[in-house]
């Protein structure tokens, strides 16, 4: 009897073990993730006196900076995903082979993404001021003569947007290139060779074999980029200050931290927060749906 019971307890223990192991994560997420998410959702429908209202959203949607913020964010996301991605793919396809020094090169390419956003901010802020290193560099390579300078940060809104996109591209293209290179190197060479054997030219093989095989990597890279690009704000604030080139997350920080005294600030901040949350969540959900969250794959072969 006793043996039987011990066995039973053991079996029960076996069954319970995975749940006991994941229990801390579940509790943690209920308390520190689900609770704030629900709270932020409730907050966005609550006015300053604790009553239900749609007014927060009305205020956000009619805010003079809302449409510019949405537009700028959208443009940054499009540029980030389209332009940076195509450039990275182009580079990855060109570089996809072993060459002397390739490991050093790959590490170099990791540096921009490894840098904290404030360090990147320091880099470009010191670079784009009138007496900064970029003007100095242009002077050294004799594109400029004498004391000729470009006032980088004094341009129009579109110039600023382009600058931000270029800075972002500097940081992101190398890392997407690495990701794509890693993906390319996982493609068995036979599959591409087969394409050539059957008479395909480079573009056909690329379109019909390489890119489809690269699709999971591309999907992951694009979505991670999308989600990050939607939330770009720090580099903009460091370069241009608040409100000059409004974007969605910058608005949240602005209302929460820069003008905390106004009685509309917290409502505005929570309204903007929900908008960002919805955009990011929908992106993430669509992606997870498409890629089918299959989990870490067991190593092949």
């Amino acid at each position, binding site marked *: 009897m006793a043996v039987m019971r011990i066995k039973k307890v053991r079996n029960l223990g076996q069954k319970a073990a995975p749940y006991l192991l994941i229990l801390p*994560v579940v509790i943690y997420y209920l308390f520190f993730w689900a609770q704030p998410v629900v709270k932020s959702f409730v907050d966005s429908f609550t006015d300053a006196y604790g009553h239900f209202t749609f007014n927060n959203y009305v205020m956000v949607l009619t805010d003079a900076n809302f449409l510019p913020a949405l537009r700028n964010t959208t443009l940054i996301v499009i540029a980030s995903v389209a332009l940076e991605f195509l450039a990275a793919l182009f580079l990855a396809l060109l570089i996809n082979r072993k060459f002397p020094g390739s490991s050093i090169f790959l590490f170099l390419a990791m540096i921009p993404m490894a840098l904290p956003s404030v360090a990147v901010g320091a880099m470009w802020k010191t670079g784009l001021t009138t007496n900064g290193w970029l003007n100095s560099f242009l002077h050294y390579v004799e594109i400029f003569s004498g004391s000729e300078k470009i006032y980088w940060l004094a341009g129009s809104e579109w110039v600023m947007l382009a600058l931000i996109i270029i800075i972002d591209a500097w940081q992101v293209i190398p890392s997407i290139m690495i990701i794509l290179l890693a993906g390319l190197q996982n493609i068995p060479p036979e599959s591409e060779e087969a394409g050539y054997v059957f008479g395909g030219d480079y573009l056909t093989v690329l379109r019909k074999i390489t890119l489809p095989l690269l699709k999971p990597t591309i999907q992951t890279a694009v979505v991670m980029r999308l989600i990050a690009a939607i939330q770009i704000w720090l580099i903009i604030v460091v370069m241009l200050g608040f409100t000059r080139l409004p974007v969605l997350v910058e608005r949240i920080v602005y209302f929460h931290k820069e003008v905390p005294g106004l009685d509309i600030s917290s409502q505005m901040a929570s309204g903007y927060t929900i908008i960002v949350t919805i955009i990011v969540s929908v992106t993430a959900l669509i992606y997870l749906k498409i890629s089918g969250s299959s989990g870490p794959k067991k190593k092949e072969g």
Partner: protein
Amino acid sequence: MASKKKRFNPYKLANKALLYIIITSVAFTILLPVFFLVSLSFLTTRDSYKFPLPLLPSLTSDYKLEYGERGYLLSIFDKAEEDYATVMDTEDLEKMSIYMEARLGTPTTIEEIEEQIARLETRNIVYFTKKIDLLHNFKAFFLITNDAFPALVRSLQICVLTILISLSIGGMAGYAFARYSFAGRDALKFSVLFVRMFPGIAIALPMVVILIRIGFYDNPIGLALVYSIGSIALTVWITASIFMGIPVTLEEAAQVFGATKMQTFIRITFPLALPGLAAAAMYAFLGAWNETVAAIVLTQFNPTFSVVVYQSLVGAVGQVNLAAAGGIVMAVPTVIFTFIIRRYINQMWGGMSV
């Protein structure tokens, strides 16, 4: 690509040349801003206001001292102008000493200046050379920037706490994902991924009130709790794939020899998983060290180091060389850790479908 014979092939040569041109220009574009940031962080304040900026910091400064109208006339040799430039004319040796340290990067005591002045008795002009303290910007950043040092300590505390929380909680779940199949496994995995992708600001903002309630607002523990949300998700992911890579047969063999489950884990599984766990810890460090937006929202009087650097950059930058030094202090640990875990980063993207 078609022919594999070793013959002179102009197409192949051009191809190779193109490859190297591209690689060089990409490397150059990546390195140029990095180079200038590093160089700027070593420049003296005087040099950092020059246009064009000197490409490299100088190691020494040549000074000229003579009698001036108001006292002693101090000049410094300007390498770009190839001539001495007067920097000050004063009797106040203390002022001169401070100026030589703060603006010119050459710490010089009043006694040392007096020594040079003594040499002036016998001649009209005294020339002398001082070594530039290359770390002066870093020292000055911590001296001048209010709160920089305590903020650095806080940031490190947050990183350690985040690593502890996410490795213990996330590592357990990762082990469960790797070794057991149970109802709700896929749903849970899905939610872990979703949490990972969730915008940080959307957690940080409502967290203000929650943290105030439990007494951790404006406190390293509060930030570590918030950072652990994303970091746990990543740790579950990484550790699951690590434990999957360790054959179950090893664990079973140990149990055949009479080891308990706990002993097996401690003696067999854990040591094998250690390098991967270290990588997961470094990931957690990178996330917590770099994070800025939640830190801005969730701190008031006790900012993290990244917030201190951020604040030194917003608005008109006081001294660009100090801002650069702050940026470098932020960047050094991340570049080192990224270098250590570079293999895992590549694996993450290449060998894993998220």
